[in-house]
């Protein structure tokens, strides 16, 4: 057993001679975490997940999954790709039977059937007749039925209505609570993941912009409102994002010392943290030393 679900060092992927989809990515995700992979469209989220799933080989650097290489880890990993690939001509029931056949000894038929039944899907319906959201449900049922140690989900909630979203997120969280499953899920909607995730991997422009425990990241940052004259004082802290409006300036900073009494300080939300870093690609990335080797919360 290893306490590291995914570890990447200098990871990079380039398609053909084109531009780098991902480059210089170094991060560590401990097991038992629910990790949000967040970033704008085209940031490299899907590439990162596909590399972890072992379906792409890195162009440079290295990635280990559950203590081994991604291909060897595959039997212990559940992966739902963005396109939710399934066999369109199979029925729902046949699809689950394939899942059982491909995962002898580990297949959790009860969970897979419960996920499908909760959506009111007819087991005899063919996959090609299903809506996008219904296909997502079948794909998640397959991934959960595998009872994996690591679940990689690319935009799992995108096609789902609010009710199904809530219910399936609850199912995922229950899986994490019961079996200690590590879950990695991507989205470009931060608010959607805020309550469910405890770890963040923020990707922008093919690079890791921020990685770590969400509580630690939030605690390290402060949102301040200060008089515009104090711009010099502000620069003694690490400034992620700042904007001046009239006589005031508001900023997202990592304080390097006590703040003046005249400043108003408050804790940022996850969304403010993410947007602040995405708006400023040159903002310094916090050193990961603080969060590596830490005991699970």
């Amino acid at each position: 057993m290893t306490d590291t679900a995914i570890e990447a060092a200098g990871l990079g992927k380039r398609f053909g001679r084109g531009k780098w989809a991902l480059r210089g990515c170094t991060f560590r995700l401990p097991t038992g975490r629910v990790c949000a992979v967040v970033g704008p469209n085209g940031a490299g989220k899907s590439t990162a997940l596909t590399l972890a799933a072992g379906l792409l080989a890195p162009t440079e650097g290295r990635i280990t999954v559950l203590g081994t290489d991604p291909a060897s880890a595959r039997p212990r990993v559940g992966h739902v790709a963005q396109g939710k690939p399934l066999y369109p001509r199979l029925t729902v029931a046949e699809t689950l039977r394939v899942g059982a056949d491909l995962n002898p000894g580990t297949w959790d038929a009860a969970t897979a059937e419960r996920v499908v039944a909760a959506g009111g899907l007819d087991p005899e319906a063919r996959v090609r007749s299903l809506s996008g959201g219904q296909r997502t449900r079948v794909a998640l049922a397959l991934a959960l039925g595998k009872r994996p140690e690591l679940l990689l989900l690319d935009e799992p909630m995108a096609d789902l209505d609010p009710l199904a979203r809530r219910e399936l997120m609850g199912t995922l969280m229950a899986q994490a609570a019961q079996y200690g499953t590590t879950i990695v899920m991507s989205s470009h909607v931060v608010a959607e993941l805020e309550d469910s995730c405890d770890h963040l991997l923020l990707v922008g422009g093919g690079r890791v912009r921020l990685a770590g425990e969400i509580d630690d990241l939030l605690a390290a940052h402060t949102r301040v409102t200060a008089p515009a004259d104090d711009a010099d004082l502000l620069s003694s802290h690490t400034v992620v994002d700042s904007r001046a409006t009239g006589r005031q300036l508001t900023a997202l900073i990592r304080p390097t010392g006590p703040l003046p009494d005249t400043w108003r300080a408050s804790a940022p939300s996850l969304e403010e943290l993410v947007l602040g870093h995405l708006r400023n690609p040159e903002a310094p990335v916090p050193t990961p030393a603080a969060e590596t080797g830490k005991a699970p919360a």
Partner: protein
Amino acid sequence: MIEYRIDRHSGVATYVQLVQQTKQALRLGLLRPGDKLPAAREVVEATAINPNTVLKAYRELEREGLVEARRGMGTFVRRSLGAAPADDSPLRAELDGWAARAHAAGLERDDVAALFTAVLDKHFQGDPS
């Protein structure tokens, strides 16, 4: 059994909401010593929040001596909180009558709340809320 409700826009940290709702249930006698708190799995399945958030809330309640975790069994209430009378108490009946009179007198909900808070502040000055 207590059922938690998460308000995403309250600005109160999710684990704090769980702690507060548990304490509220203890005050109202909805949870009593010996009662079992819902398992983390049940809470996260119903609310879709992160399992570690529930564990953090339960640890906080344990630190305050209100609950105890029994290995492999779950988390149980150790002691109740305050002495807020249950539904059928005389104090509640008086408050109920008072609220009905306020309503009949044409007061709006906010007026009643302001009045109640003012009286509360007068009698419980300095007490922690």
